[in-house]
């Protein structure tokens, strides 16, 4: 804001100072404020605003309370009643005399402040305090990218080692991978799966990790051949070990040959930036064996820039490192069409970027709602001010200064703002849990802290600011009056008096239109998303997760035997139609990306990126996925049988654009070299595995029984059950049946496929619901605003209507007249709102699925709806105008 602009506002605020003091010092105070403003930066200015509010309020109070300190009052009669306290009493008394008005105004403001406060707590958690690590601004994330595969990949151990030793711009480089382990049944008899992170390098320091119990791994644990050590996360320690301090130094986690010794417990606030782990098992950095591993991409890498070094110079260094790689490891690191490159991004942008965009959208929506609420209350206050014109006129004529007249009006606004805050904060406090229930997990986790002191402080500031804002408008209008005109007009309907009111009505309609249009777009987008066919049938499908512990199942046949038995037993349960196993549950689990090549492919250049799924016989049918050609896997497709696979239609099109895929053969480039060619036996419908909104990628399904590569790939699986019975009866029965085969296998996360589909669009649902609620409130507030203003203007023109009725004007003429006048104002506002919405909507593009940001249906429909609502709100008061009896005219004229 410019200096003169803020100076004017500051000057206006000085009106609450006692007149004698103000006359003498206000101009200098304002000048002083302006000078300091001009010399201050943005942050300092924000502080100045808060301090100025406090300073002015305090000065007004102090000068009032100790009048001896100020100059003598210039005019008699400025004694008792001129006090701020007296004006405050006047304002409160005025509000109490009209409880209906007061309650409505306070509730309106309360809704606005509640919405703003709730959203602020999300913004505070995500944008202002998102990354709880030391030096968050210097942290960057480093990843690999392949030209022919979508998405980001972790670094390979060799790349990590090179980056850590060669890139000079980086002060610290750390990383982590993930694994799963299975814990034997603990005291409660339940076997558990635990996710372990494998921290490497400087990760502890980068994340500011500290132990609340025991110690963190140190240099002695970093020797090659040192025994494995682990630290537990606080949550897992509480959950699995009941917070028993005895586990440190005595228990081990089942990993490697002799297990990993638990040496400490992490503090509760320590967390990985991406992904959750139950325990951190220290990974020894072994350059000797790592330099050769360039193909396994599993190290999530983060680094801290040296002080004063930019992200750009790190990027430049990495680019030159890449060129070295391309020369030294030709074929592995080709730069270009099929090559792979490294990417760099600040960690906060990477982790919080998407959440930030949501937070900004929500704050803007809440801000609009609050503005609308303010406009509405200003409207009501202004209307009241109009009815008090004669009173004001008398006071001005008797010599009251303009400030004296304006001050009680302004104070009324402030009192209402505070009342609104008193209502709004609990609203936010109790509304937050509801809000977080529908929030996607990442936001819910961040914003879980709820309403704290900072949030309350924010709400108080917002309440006072809004109070001042909507108090100022009527206060100015009260102060500007010419007493003679006021007295002349007393009791009469002045044409033009309601111009300010009309402007506010138009403004309200415009704001409501913007909010409704944005909410409409998001809601349509959500409907579009929900009407997408996921490619599978979620109805009557129940899922259970299995993780097979290596300690009990040391080889592939034992794992596969267990899967067979599990499928068999579950299928035999009563009420179950069929059951099958898949490796990655669509719409929930990340998909594994690999390469395949056609049998006739000439070389590396002809490879095709695919996602790889594993499945048991009958999996397609059990998930309700349509088979277009060929057959599903059968029990006969075992290790010794010919290798088979299923492909989705996208993969079939990508690999054999002009012919049927059936009977064609591919080579799995991720399998050991001696793995034979795989024959395609079936083509199935594209499934939206990644998300409902993402276009399906080429996918290949291999049978569990013929999995090439490493055993780890089959250690966990999801059982899918199709059943007409209720999940509540199916889940325990299935769990029991699987435990009966082997109790050491954890059976976890039981849910329904419908829930999985629903959860996959939780982000979109969250935004749409919240904006929907805001828009609904906006509509109600706007309707109330229109109703209030029309009622008011009809009441003021009672005499005119009475005369017109007496003169025989038709009811329809009067009704039409009132409606036309008021609805045209609302219509102008709705049009302005539609233009604003058209300008703002492209900013929503990244939130929309299958809906154009300037969707004509919404951009035309919403303003129309607002006009209809305005018409309905005007109807009752307009009808009242037609019923005014001529006798009233005589009564009204005193």
């Amino acid at each position, binding site marked *: 804001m410019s200096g003169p602009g803020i100076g004017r506002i500051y000057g206006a605020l000085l009106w609450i*100072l006692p007149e004698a*003091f103000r006359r*003498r*010092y206000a101009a*200098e*105070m*304002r*000048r*002083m*404020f302006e*000078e*300091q403003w001009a010399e201050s930066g943005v942050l300092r200015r924000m502080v100045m605003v808060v*301090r*100025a509010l*406090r*300073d*002015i309020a*305090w*000065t007004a109070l*102090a*000068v009032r309370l100790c009048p*001896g*300190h*100020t*100059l003598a009052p210039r005019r008699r009669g400025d004694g008792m009643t001129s006090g701020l306290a007296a004006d405050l009493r006047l304002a409160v008394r005025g509000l109490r005399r009209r409880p209906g008005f007061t309650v409505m105004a306070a509730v309106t403001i309360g809704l606005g402040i509640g919405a703003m406060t709730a959203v602020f707590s999300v913004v505070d958690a995500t944008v202002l305090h998102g990354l709880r690590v030391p030096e968050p601004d210097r942290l960057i994330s480093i990843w690999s990218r392949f030209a022919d595969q979508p998405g980001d990949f972790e670094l390979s151990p060799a790349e990590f080692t090179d980056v850590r030793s060669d890139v000079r711009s980086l002060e610290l480089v750390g990383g982590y991978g993930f694994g799963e382990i299975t814990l034997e049944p603990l005291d409660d008899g339940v076997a558990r799966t635990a996710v372990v992170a494998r921290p490497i390098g400087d990760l502890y320091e980068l994340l500011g990790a500290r132990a609340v119990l025991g110690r963190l791994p140190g240099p002695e644990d970093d020797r090659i051949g040192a025994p494995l050590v682990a630290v537990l996360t606080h949550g897992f320690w509480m959950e699995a070990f009941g917070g028993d301090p005895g586990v440190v130094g005595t228990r081990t986690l089942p990993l490697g040959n002799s297990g990993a010794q638990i040496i400490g417990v992490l503090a509760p606030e320590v967390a990985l930036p991406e992904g959750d782990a139950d325990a951190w098992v220290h990974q020894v950095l072994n350059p000797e064996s790592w330099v050769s591993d360039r193909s396994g991409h599993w190290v999530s890498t983060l680094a801290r820039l040296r002080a004063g070094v930019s992200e750009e110079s790190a990027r430049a260094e990495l680019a030159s490192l890449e060129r070295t790689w391309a020369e030294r490891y030709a074929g592995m690191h080709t730069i270009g069409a099929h090559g792979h490159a490294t990417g760099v991004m600040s960690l906060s942008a990477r982790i919080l970027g998407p959440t930030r965009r949501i937070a900004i959208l929500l704050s803007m929506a809440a801000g609009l709602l609050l503005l609308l609420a303010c406009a509405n209350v200003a409207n009501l206050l202004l209307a009241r001010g109009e009815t008090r014109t004669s009173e004001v006129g008398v006071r001005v004529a008797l010599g009251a200064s303009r400030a004296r007249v304006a001050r009680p009006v302004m104070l009324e606004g402030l009192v209402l703002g505070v009342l609104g805050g008193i209502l709004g904060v609990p609203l936010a406090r109790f509304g937050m849990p509801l809000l977080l229930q529908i929030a996607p997990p990442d936001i819910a986790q961040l914003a879980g802290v709820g309403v704290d002191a900072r949030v309350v402080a924010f709400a108080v500031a917002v309440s006072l600011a809004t109070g001042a804002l909507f108090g100022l408008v009527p206060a100015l209008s009260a102060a500007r009056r010419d007493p003679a005109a006021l007295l002349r007009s007393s009791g009469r309907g002045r044409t033009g008096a309601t111009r300010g009111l009309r402007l506010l009505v138009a403004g309200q309609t415009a704001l409501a239109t913007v909010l409704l249009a944005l909410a409409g777009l998001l809601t349509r987008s959500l409907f579009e998303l929900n009407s997408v066919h996921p490619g599978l049938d979620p109805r009557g499908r129940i899922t259970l997760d299995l993780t097979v512990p290596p300690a009990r199942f040391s080889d592939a046949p034992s794992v596969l035997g267990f899967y067979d038995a599990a499928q068999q037993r579950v299928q035999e349960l009563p009420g179950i139609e069929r059951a099958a196993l898949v490796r990655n549950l669509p719409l929930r689990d990340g998909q594994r990306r690999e390469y395949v090549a056609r049998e006739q492919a000439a070389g590396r250049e002809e490879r095709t990126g695919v996602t790889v799924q594993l499945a048991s016989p009958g999996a397609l049918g059990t998930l309700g996925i349509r088979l277009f050609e060929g057959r599903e896997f059968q029990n006969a497709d075992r290790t010794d049988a010919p290798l088979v696979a299923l492909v989705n239609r996208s993969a079939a099109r990508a690999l054999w654009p002009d012919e049927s895929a059936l009977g064609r053969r591919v080579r799995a480039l991720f399998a050991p070299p001696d793995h034979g060619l795989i024959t395609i036996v079936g083509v199935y419908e594209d499934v939206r595995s990644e998300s409902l909104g993402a276009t399906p990628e080429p996918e290949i399904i291999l049978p569990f029984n013929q999995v090439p590569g490493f055993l780890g790939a089959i250690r966990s699986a999801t059982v899918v059950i199709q059943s007409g019975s209720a999940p509540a009866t199916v889940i325990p029965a299935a769990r029991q049946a699987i435990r009966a085969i082997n109790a050491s296998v954890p059976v976890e996360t039981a849910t329904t496929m419908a829930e999985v589909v629903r959860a996959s669009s939780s982000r979109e649902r969250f935004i749409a619901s919240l904006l929907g609620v805001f828009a609904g409130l906006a509509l109600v507030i706007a309707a109330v605003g229109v109703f209030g203003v029309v009622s008011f203007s009809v009441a003021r023109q009672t005499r005119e209507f009475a005369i017109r009725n007496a003169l025989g004007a038709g009811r329809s003429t009067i009704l039409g007249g009132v409606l036309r006048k008021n609805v045209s104002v609302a219509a102008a506002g709705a049009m302005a709102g539609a233009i604003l919405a058209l300008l703002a909507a492209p900013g929503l593009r990244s939130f929309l699925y299958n809906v154009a940001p300037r969707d004509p249906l919404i951009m035309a429909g919403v303003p129309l709806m607002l006009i209809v609502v305005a018409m309905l709100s005007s109807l009752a008061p307009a009808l009242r105008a037609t019923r005014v009896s001529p006798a009233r005219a005589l009564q009204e004229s005193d």
Partner: protein
Amino acid sequence: MSELADLIPLPPHTFLVLLCLRGRPLHGYGIKKEVRARSEGRVDLDPGGLYRLIARLEARGIVSVVEAPVDAPGDDHRRVFYTLTPAGEALLAMEASRLAALIGSPDVAALIEGARA
């Protein structure tokens, strides 16, 4: 003069403001900046706070409004400048000697020595 003596000891901010006005007239923002500099940034007066103080000091005849100094920059000529009145000078001197006596007392002197060591 006895009325002035009632004001002793002066609140630290008041003392600072009077000290800044000694020997040369200043306008409000000038006082603010000078006070901030003298207190090494610890005392930062808001406009309301400063003019409340000035109002009290004016009412008691401790400071008064003067013409802008001839060497003031062009824009400053329209500002209100304040200076110490003779009573203000006396008050400042009283407070200064009170402080000096306080600091001069052996136990306080020992404290200061201790802090330096």
